[in-house]
């Protein structure tokens, strides 16, 4: 940009480009991290992440289908959202529904079956993705792989407001489930004996996760690491009580994605790196340090 920009130009850059991008980064980071914490509680497994219920795999396929179908051309956006985003959201929601149906019987939803079904559906989605990539030309291939790396570059006010609406739903509903999630860690039948309506809460949490991750992935592509490792890191620092873990994970996720995106934007000027590359590069070493520190204490 140089030093010769007019003040009005600077203002419009900040208002129209930087600010929505900053808000989108904060919200996507917070939503991915808080839903990661929710999934780890629901599956009673600290290695679970939001992609486990199939939403990311499905979103990938949805996005790839749109890119390939459009023949690499840029489709005209719909209400500020690209067709790729729409394809990703639909793909993500459909796969989550399939995984949920497979795992739900008259006895309720089995999280173990859901985990396995998520892996199976994820594998199918991966195969579809490879198939689509195989038949893509160079232009499509590049679009697909850039999308999969996760990128906040296309942020605008429409995207930021959509994400804000989804975040509002998630952040207003989740805190009331913190105690239930604590009880879930004991096991589902123990939670039931503590007076918790396990099936209803499970359904609600899965729905919120599909919504939150579906929209995040649609708007920002696949941003790995945040959903898996942020809750894990926060747990190492403050313990597993969801009443503190959920808000703290949201804060940490928002911070990480904001920092990662800011660096991604300036590190190879005048070009930009996909944000997803930076989240892992920044977060992983910190995580390793925490693990080493914990090993020393045990």
């Amino acid at each position, binding site marked *: 940009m140089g030093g010769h920009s007019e003040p009005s130009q600077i203002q419009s850059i900040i208002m129209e480009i930087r600010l929505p991008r900053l808000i989108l980064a904060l919200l996507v980071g917070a939503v991915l991290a808080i839903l990661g914490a929710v999934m780890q509680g629901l599956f009673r497994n600290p290695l679970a992440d939001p992609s486990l219920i199939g939403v990311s795999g499905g979103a990938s396929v949805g996005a790839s289908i749109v890119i390939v179908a459009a023949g690499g051309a840029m489709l005209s956006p719909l209400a500020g959202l690209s067709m790729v985003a729409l394809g990703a959201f639909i793909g993500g929601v459909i796969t989550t529904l399939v995984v949920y149906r497979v795992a739900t019987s008259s006895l309720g939803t089995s999280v173990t079956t859901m985990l396995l079904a998520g892996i199976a559906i994820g594998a199918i989605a991966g195969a579809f993705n490879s198939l689509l990539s195989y038949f893509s030309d160079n232009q499509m291939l590049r679009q697909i792989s850039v999308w999969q790396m996760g990128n906040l570059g296309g942020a605008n006010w429409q995207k930021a407001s959509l994400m804000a609406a989804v975040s509002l739903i998630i952040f207003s509903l989740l805190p009331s489930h913190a105690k239930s999630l604590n009880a879930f860690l*004991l096991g589902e039948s*123990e939670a039931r*004996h*503590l007076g918790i309506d396990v099936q209803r809460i499970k359904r609600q949490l899965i729905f919120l996760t599909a919504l939150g991750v579906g929209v995040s992935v649609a708007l920002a592509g696949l941003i790995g690491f945040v959903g898996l490792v942020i809750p894990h890191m926060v*747990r190492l620092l403050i*313990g597993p009580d969801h009443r503190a873990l959920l808000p703290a994970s949201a804060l940490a996720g928002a911070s990480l994605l904001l920092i990662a995106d800011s660096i991604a934007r300036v590190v190879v000027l005048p070009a930009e790196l996909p944000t997803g590359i930076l989240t892992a590069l920044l977060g992983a070493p910190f995580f390793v340090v925490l693990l080493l520190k914990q090993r020393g204490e045990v």
Partner: protein
Amino acid sequence: MAIVANDLSLHLSGFDLLRNIDLTIEAGKVNVLVGPNGAGKSSLLRVLTGEIKPTKGDVLINQQPLNDWSMQDRANLLAVLPQHSDLNFPFTAAEVVGLGRIPHKTGFAKDQAIIAEALALVDASYLQRRLYTQMSGGEKQRVQLARVLAQIWQPSDLGEQFLVLDEPTAAFDLSHQQLTLSIVKQLADRGVGVLMVLHDLNLAARCADNLVVVNGGTIEASGTPKKVLTKELIYQVFDVQSVIAEHPVAKTPLVIT
């Protein structure tokens, strides 16, 4: 008041797990289930606590069908300790016991006091700040016991309370076995109906007001240990020859094999 099972039967995947069981768990009494492996003890516990619906028959708590109670109210009346709990997250002992206070709205200070008392009762005060994931098997089980005790620590307005324990002493050393039995007796004296599965017949004889022998999905015998524990029954149910003596101090039956 009591937990009453009327003509319970349970068929699951082609097997008759329980057949025509009538059982009353009276409040203020220690009821002990014994029986060989696969006799249906755990299935019976799961039906009685509402985890599985029986194929036939019904279960009443304090004269009201189990499923008519709201989840929250039921949790105020009935606490259940499973045989194993695989909790893989690093809660402190105090936090685990605190989970037992979820059904209650007594406030932070009161809950903290109950947590401390429950831990003290099971001889686990020293574990309060320790992480559950780093405890031994017996310590974990004591913390879990404190959790279910905290759940029914105070009497409920909704009626008599019940505590169901599935092999609570399995991971315990001798002194903690004795401690568990004395806790259970104290609870029964307070009016709580206790139902527990035990494998050790002599332990069962020492503490049971009502001893229920389950075999092949039916109740083989029930009543006071003195009435139930006979040489013939033990041979018939466990296929083991034994001598029944009398405990020199407690005057309860002593099964010598």
